[in-house]
């Protein structure tokens, strides 16, 4: 269930947002050179799309255990010690992600309260920040899912 939700979450960023970002960057250049009409709102929209792309990938990266990390001692541990440390590592990472989620949630509430918006186009920031919060919460769940998998003997 969780992997399906994370797959969907990652999917909309990978199949829709990322290609759209590339097209927007390219079209903005073409419009500027060919018609002398750069998109005034282009930078704002591209930056917000970037934020969504890079954060939407976080839960899938956690679930697939693809975060960049040092695996120096992994092969030197006994299987039991490796599992115990794997469990501790995923729990520690989940706690770190939880703090990040709490920080972004606070930021979302502040943005909503103060009505923060993009400069050149009327886009409120709080829905974007909320999507980032959801991505981080999914990352917490992904790390916990990996911890549970270790407990069940399926690391």
């Amino acid at each position, binding site marked *: 269930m969780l992997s399906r939700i994370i797959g969907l979450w990652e999917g909309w960023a990978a199949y829709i947002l990322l290609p759209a970002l590339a097209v927007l960057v390219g079209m903005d250049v073409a419009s500027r050179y060919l018609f002398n009409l750069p998109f005034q709102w282009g930078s704002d929209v591209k930056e917000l799309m970037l934020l969504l792309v890079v954060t939407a990938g976080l839960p899938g990266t956690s679930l697939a255990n693809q975060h960049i*990390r040092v695996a120096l001692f992994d092969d030197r541990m006994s299987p039991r010690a490796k599992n115990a440390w794997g469990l501790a590592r995923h729990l520690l990472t989940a706690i770190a992600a939880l703090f990040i989620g709490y920080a972004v949630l606070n*930021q979302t509430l502040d943005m909503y309260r103060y009505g923060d918006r993009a400069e050149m186009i009327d886009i409120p920031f709080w829905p974007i920040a909320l999507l980032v919060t959801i991505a981080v919460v999914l990352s917490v769940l992904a790390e916990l899912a990996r911890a549970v998998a270790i407990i069940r003997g399926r690391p």
Partner: protein
Amino acid sequence: MEPLTLGIVVLAGMLAAVLAGVPVGYALLAAGTIGYAILGGASQALTQIGLALWDNGTNFLFIAVPLFILMGQIIFHAGLADDIFSVAQRSLRRLPGGLGISTVVASAGFGAVTGSSVAAVATMGNIAVPEMVKRGYSEKLATGSVASAATLAILIPPSVPLVIYGVWSETSIGALFIAGIVPGLLLTLLFALALMMQRGQYPAVSGAGTPNPRPRSAMATGVLTIATVAVIVIGGIYAGIFTPTEASGIGVLAVLVLAAASRRLKLAALRAALEETVRTSAAIFLILTGGVVLSRFLVQTRLTDAVVGLVAGLDVAPQIVLLALVVVYLVLGAIMDTFGMLILTLPLVLPITVALGYDPIWTGIYLTVLMEIAMITPPIGLNVFVLERATGVPAQRIFAGVWPFVAASLVLVLVLIFFPGLATWLPNTMQR
């Protein structure tokens, strides 16, 4: 606790967490957050995380990272690198070690359209190693040359580590890209020489056999695609037509159009490229954000100033300090990946090189060369393990083959230290 002592304790704790296997990005973020919480309270710590995440995630320059990764991924999944290898093989087969040199040249060419050496080693490993072994090259030389030549991808523009460096150090990414061209070409030449000098490891008879049965016109498609994209991206940046961010978008569209027109890109390959790009970008973004939080905290503790003051006060020539950095990066490279190494060291290394009188653009190139060496030296050597997975050749045998290429890279390190203009003159001629 004194802020300086706190800075040292937090840094040590972060290194311990990283060595213990906690993801580098989360370890950096957690260390910076704990440090801020002790120094200025929990509220300040939470504010710093939120700000760093938002500011980095909406940094216009960072758009180039996912788009350059995507560009390389599309070329990789469309199999266009096969063609550049085949053409290099045809052209260079009369030279001693011609097939090996073709591999080095093809890696450099592939590097001109991808910013990631992992993509380069996975691609060239599958294409070049079986061919070299079949033609009588020792497995040691075949794999050692491929693992080493793939590192050219992060020096020859576009380069993802140079984008990260530029974002982090607020240095012109366009100038950094252009600065990588001459050292990248010189290293290509040094690698080719290193290969030619290993006479016992490749067949004495050159030019034997037919290089590739495919028609020239079919191979020309891939080469033309790669050459067109490289010219558009690098030429556009050099001529001041595009910023690197814009060049990344144009590059992706150009690759898509050319690969689709030549019917080399299947839907499944495109899906794989998009998924891989999102995950890789997320992992890099987390490290960058964590590094920003930690380095801001370290600046507040004045640890950065203390280290820079200590090094600047040493009664040794700047070149000695730079050579000492080689040792530091070799040690770090033994335990850490490129991005982790870059972000971890930048808060201290960049102020040191600037204090020694070196240009930040030069520093970016110098650090990239050091990272290249770290990617092929044991015990971690990321490229070696990717190649082991791609070819099935044991890592120990690949490591045994990289040393002549490490020596070639160290020659470039010395040239850069004593002739810094090698990296800085070309960017000085570009349109900005």
